[in-house]
């Protein structure tokens, strides 16, 4: 009986905790131009932004637009650009080091060639 009550309470707590979270801190939505090519770039950019203070990051390989939702009290736009540069992608605010860029897979070498519109884009987006 005791375990049953604990179980039900946990059940309810989880539900409410998730709803309560919605009314959390102030957020800002920004659109940044991030240079890159393909679905692999998308994965790399978005997982680099799996970071404290960033709620959501979506990058579009065709438009090169990064839609990022973040909490300004925790992270700045410059810091976001630095995070992106660290994994090899340039933004207008931060340029990636050549050493990092040189290690990107071929299809991602956006400074040298345009590889967008490859079929892997659609797959990854899905």
């Amino acid at each position, binding site marked *: 009986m005791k375990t049953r009550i604990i*179980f039900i309470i946990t059940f309810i707590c989880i539900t409410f905790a998730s709803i309560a979270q919605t009314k959390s801190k102030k957020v800002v939505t920004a659109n940044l131009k991030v240079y890159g090519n393909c679905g692999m770039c998308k994965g790399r950019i978005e997982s680099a932004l799996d970071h404290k203070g960033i709620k959501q990051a979506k990058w579009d390989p065709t438009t090169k637009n990064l839609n990022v939702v973040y909490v300004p009290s925790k992270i700045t736009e410059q810091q976001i650009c630095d995070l992106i540069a660290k994994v090899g992608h340039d933004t207008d605010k931060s340029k990636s080091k050549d050493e990092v860029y040189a290690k990107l897979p*071929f299809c991602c070498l956006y400074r040298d060639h345009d590889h967008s519109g490859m079929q892997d884009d659609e797959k990854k987006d899905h």
Partner: protein
Amino acid sequence: MKRIGITIFMVIALTFSARLLLAQKLMGLVVEKNAEGVDEPLTGANVVWLGTSKGTSTGENGVFMIDRVEGANRLIVSFIGYRSDTLTIADQTSVKITLQSDQVLKEVTVHGWKPATGIDQSRGINTVIMTEKELFKAACCNLSESFETNPSVDVSFTDAITGTRQIQMLGLAGPNTMISIENMPGVRGLASSQGIQFIPGTWINSIQVTKGVGSVVNGYESIAGQINVEMKKPQESEKLFINGYVNQSARSEMNLNYSLVTGDKWATTFLLHGSTRPIEMDENDDYFLDFPTGSQLNFINRWVYNNNKGLLGQVGIKILTDGKQGGQTGFNPEQDKFTTNRYGFEINTKRYEAWGKIGYQFVGKPYKSVGLQLSGIKHDHESYYGLNLHDGDEKSFYSNLIYQSIISNTSHKFKSGLSFLYDDFDETLEVANGIELEGSSPVASTTFDRTEIVPGAFFEYTYDDLKNFSAIAGIRVDQHNLFGTIFTPRLHLRYNLTPTTTLRVSAGKGTRVANIVSENSGVLVSARAFVLSDFQTKKAYGFKPDVAWNYGLNFSQDFMLDYRAGSFTVDYFFTDFQNQVVLDLDRTAREARFFGLNGKSFSHSLQFQVDYELMRRFDLRMAYRWLNVKTDYTEGLLVKPLIAEHRAFVNLAYETKSNWKFDFTVQWLGKQRIPDTSQNLTEYQLPGYSPDYFLMNAQITKDFGDKWSVYLGVENIGDYKLDNPIVASSDPFGLTTVQNDFDASMVWGPIFGRMAYAGFRFRIK
């Protein structure tokens, strides 16, 4: 002094600037143009400064980084089979070089392998796809244990001795769900008792779970749902995959998958599984093993062909041998088999399968294809349980020809084809306490033989307005040599109320011939007599096939909450049996009575499910399911026994950025009705209902790079188990009492307690 100072300064400045120049690097990319004029990287091309020994080569991505050498400004780029190129480098920091091939013949690009034709999952049918990632959440061990994170499928033990697991969907026993392997016959016929344990988890690429009626393309048999298992295929799986598993009771498993591409048309996969349970364990001290000892060897080899011009094909074989032994501790078959010295059982299975598929995709018409599937199975089952025996041989052949195309445009698709099934059964049944056939005096032994020959034809039309509505209407007609014409209509409708809100309706009919002994092997592990009464026909076991209508309603809503995705799903299914072979355990505890349904038999199932990403990489799944399954038994309309009316479920999965994965599942099962045992001796009587209980599992996985993973887990953390899972376990042959109350099939919960396990995965892509 001043001059010296300036000189020193100059020297330093010069050195510094020279250093600066030296420290500068040139980055470059070396490519070639392929047949379509698209850049392809050249790996391992040589790059050297002319007149120096300073050089480097390009990496996998075609990129090189080279230090600037003072005085050298001409760079030579060369690669075997290509014309070398010399470039003059000024002050740029990066270059791109395109080399020209000096060969006339260009290598042909091999395109990826497409899955065989005719097996696409129509999105109009509500199917949940469980991927490998999902399957890894519960690392052990075979298909019967793969549904831990799926609230729609229940798994339970058939009895307390043989360790046999059976799945349930919509509260209906396993065989009501059609389990196919790559849309060909999988777990059916004689395999319906043990079959789901013959599909190792690491062989599975994905599982598609469809509740309610499925498509007519794959036959008339599904009533409660369809589970289709896709196995690992050559081009989509790792080159080499090794998995090892061991648990605290020394249950060990080894799996080896190996794929090889031979040339540009053929590829092959070998799948090998070996497992063993070497040690006798009796934790509850009832002198019966908690699970059997035994071993399994299982092997698949498949060859796939693709000529890259639309012709696809594959052939494969599967060989399985499985042996299980158990019962009372110290049981030795050589001395104790068929005696009352000790109670023991053995189940030995040998199964051979061969299959082939061939398909043609019309060039330039991706919607048009024709495919043929062929499969042959020989299944030998030998088993005894104490003094009871069940042996069976099944030989079956199946073929299905599918043609798919469109009517004027891709909004109107259809699939049509012909199928053929040959299924031959020879079964022997011996029951110590007698087999009573339609009122005749009990016999100790009988045989059930039958041969089914079923040609069939089907047509399935799919309408999709390519916006928010789709409909799939299918019909099939099969001519059964024993039971006449089987007519199977099925309909699925999907409507998107909004882009995130989906409403689905399904309705249809299913028919299947019940293999009453295999499907109810649990009752052989008891002292019950077998009674077959109220015969409907002289064929098969004396009963007509089970026939049911199934109606389903599904509502699902996707949502975003705090920038994270989630979904909410409610579904309701109603299954209404027109005919059914009913197993009645309530009339008396002395017999297992089978009879043709006379009255009502139905199942109502209602399920709520919420999926939500609570935090980044932290997923929550909550589900609640309510069942109302009732059948008209000889004692009137009763709730089907040993099924939990309520089940709730929470699964939490967290993944760190450093590749640690944590999974935790807790489920609650409500009370279950236990068949009437009031005729037993007082000490062997069971309560009318089981208590409710919780089960918890947890697992931690760590990936090391992309080659190694290690996992560690605990099943049944709460250590909840039945105190006394076997009725009259102290006297399985009834030697000391006036009646024999022995019964190991009254199982409503776990037989063994907390179980820790560990394993690893190694893969080379």
